[in-house]
């Protein structure tokens, strides 16, 4: 199979500087004094929507399996629970799985391909979640159908415009779940987006791909790019077996939207078709997704990160489970 991006993506400057393992040179500056940490977490008010609606956000990563679809599902439902209307678009033409994570796979009858062919209207292809009625899902295509490539980006632009003008009002957020890679699917997905959320894990392979994707997004005109670091393990970070979140940020140079710890509940929630932000009591990862959604609404970024877990003080009754 010939390379799909043979000549297009090779940088013209042969002396290009891509992401290497060494950190970029920093300007000579005194380290800023560590003052009090403000705006760490806010739970006592509804976030104020910032920016023009609809906010079209593409969730991408480059490397597959880092948690894009999980992030889309959980952040989307968090936004819906905060009272905002959300439309999530699964832009993966060949491998569709956002519907599985949301538990809506049996309700997807029509896709964007049917809308383009005139088999149904756009509102008939939108699947409304019964748990949160202000959350809707739209799939690009069924797994066996093919989408004309010259069409994909334009089709998404038309879709966003049609959603803006629909009778029930424009949605507040349109989240686009981008497929892995930097192929035609990626190009299609980023076409209508105004901002991007880059999902990565603290390992070097994901970081290199994330850096490349960030470069392509900036070339395409998307400047508002924030990062979510997924599958973080504080125990490995403490043992210096894993890069810390601050190291990741220093390598990529992107503002932090969220830090999601490794959680086995993610697998259970996928099997249930029930995103883990809806669990009661919430898990650590669920809380982290909520916080990320909160910051997305206000176009804010993290000012502090959770570094390590302090050892729990054991009392006399710890034997009894105290």
């Amino acid at each position, binding site marked *: 199979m*010939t390379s*799909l991006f043979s000549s*297009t993506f090779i940088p*013209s*400057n042969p002396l290009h500087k891509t992401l290497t393992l060494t950190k*970029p040179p*920093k300007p000579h*500056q005194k380290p*800023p004094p*560590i003052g*009090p*940490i*403000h705006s*760490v*977490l806010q*739970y006592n008010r509804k976030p104020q929507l910032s920016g023009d609606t609809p906010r079209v956000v593409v969730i991408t990563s480059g490397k597959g399996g880092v948690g894009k679809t999980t992030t889309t599902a959980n952040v989307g439902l968090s936004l819906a629970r905060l009272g905002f209307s959300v439309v999530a678009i699964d832009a993966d*033409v*060949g491998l569709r799985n956002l519907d599985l994570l949301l538990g809506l796979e049996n309700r997807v009858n029509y896709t964007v391909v049917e*809308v*383009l*062919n*005139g088999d*149904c*209207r756009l509102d008939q292809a939108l699947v409304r979640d019964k748990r949160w009625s202000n959350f809707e899902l739209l799939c690009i*295509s069924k797994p066996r*159908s*093919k989408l*004309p*490539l*010259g*069409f994909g980006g334009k089709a998404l632009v*038309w879709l966003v415009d*049609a959603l803006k003008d629909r*009778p029930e009002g424009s949605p507040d957020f349109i989240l686009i779940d981008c497929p892995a890679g930097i192929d035609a699917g990626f190009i299609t997905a980023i076409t209508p987006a105004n901002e991007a959320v880059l999902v990565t894990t603290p390992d070097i392979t994901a970081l290199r791909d994330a850096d*490349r994707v*960030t*470069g*392509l997004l900036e070339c395409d005109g998307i400047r508002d790019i924030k990062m979510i670091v997924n599958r973080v393990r504080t125990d490995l970070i403490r043992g210096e077996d894993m890069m810390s979140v601050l190291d990741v*940020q*220093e390598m*990529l*140079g992107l*503002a932090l939207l969220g830090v999601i710890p490794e959680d086995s509940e993610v697998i*259970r929630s996928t*099997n*249930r*078709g*029930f995103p883990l932000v809806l669990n009661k*009591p*919430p*898990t650590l990862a669920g*809380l982290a997704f909520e916080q990320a959604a909160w910051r997305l609404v206000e176009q804010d970024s993290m000012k502090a*990160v*959770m*570094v*390590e*877990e*302090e050892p*729990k003080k054991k009392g006399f009754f710890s034997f*009894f489970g105290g």
Partner: protein
Amino acid sequence: MASSSLQLHPISISIPHRVSTNAFGLKPQSGFNKRYQIWKRKNKYPDFFIEASASSSTSGEDKPIMDEVTLASLKSNGIAVLQRQISKLQQTIVSSPPVVFLVKNSPGSTYMLGFCIATTALIIAVRVYLARKSRHKRPGSVADLVRRGQLNSGRGISKTVMYDDPFNNPQVKISKNNSTVEMCGKVYKLAPVTLTQEEQNIHQKRRSRAYQWKRPTIFLKEGDPIPADVDPDTVRWIPANHPFATTINDITEDLAQKNVYQKHGVPFRIQAEHEALQKKLEALQSDQKLNNMVIDPGTARNFERPFKSNNKLDDQQQVEQKSANGQTGSRPESQPNSNGKSASEEKQTL
């Protein structure tokens, strides 16, 4: 000879001393051992003393008298010694470890000890029971795969609880100085983010130098020629066997855009199909009506005009011709059938 009155010393006098030194009675036990050893040693000596006294008294003529006296004295001595030994033994028995005295004298401590052991056992049992119960409540999320039809199995269905209130979260607690946060029962240290705007700009510049990319606008498959006025950097080649991408445009753009923007009514393709079906149905129905219309030759004649008027006209024409030609008796040959028919019709009508 000492009297063999065995009197037990009152316990209240002897015990306090023992309790104050060691409540569990280790010293009195060692003291007891010492006394036992002394007693044992002394047990050896009475025989010696008896033998010595016996041997010293075994001399000469006074032997029989001496024997009786010595025997009596020996007997009395032996009894005294025995009595002393018994009294000492009784004393050692009486001076037993204070635990025994404690147990004897304070029954409440027994209950306390028993209560502590029972409480511990109860708490452990409750913990084990709760752990087992929580395990049974969540049999695993594979059951949900079965519920959704992704797996075939005869397992049960597990339920999840909705989390309704993101604004009042008791799982999150921030310390007063904002240096630690407690989430889901775990305490984390917080460290400030150190990325500055200048560093972000440096990274952006680095990426813009490294990744110079243009969005592809033309998609071609293998074998297609590149148009002359197109930037080669904007061309994307798609292989023919790509699983989900194609360059073939079966749909016209304008039509597709109209379909996307349609808000009401039946979608175009459905309507077109419906209209086509409708026309086909009408055509079929009209064909069926035509086929149902059959012509009966018997009744068809009733609708035909009678030939009389025609014969009269013919006769008139003939009379005119005759009159014109001056001929009487000849009939034109061009109308043999009609004349025949007319004759038969005349016959029929008459």
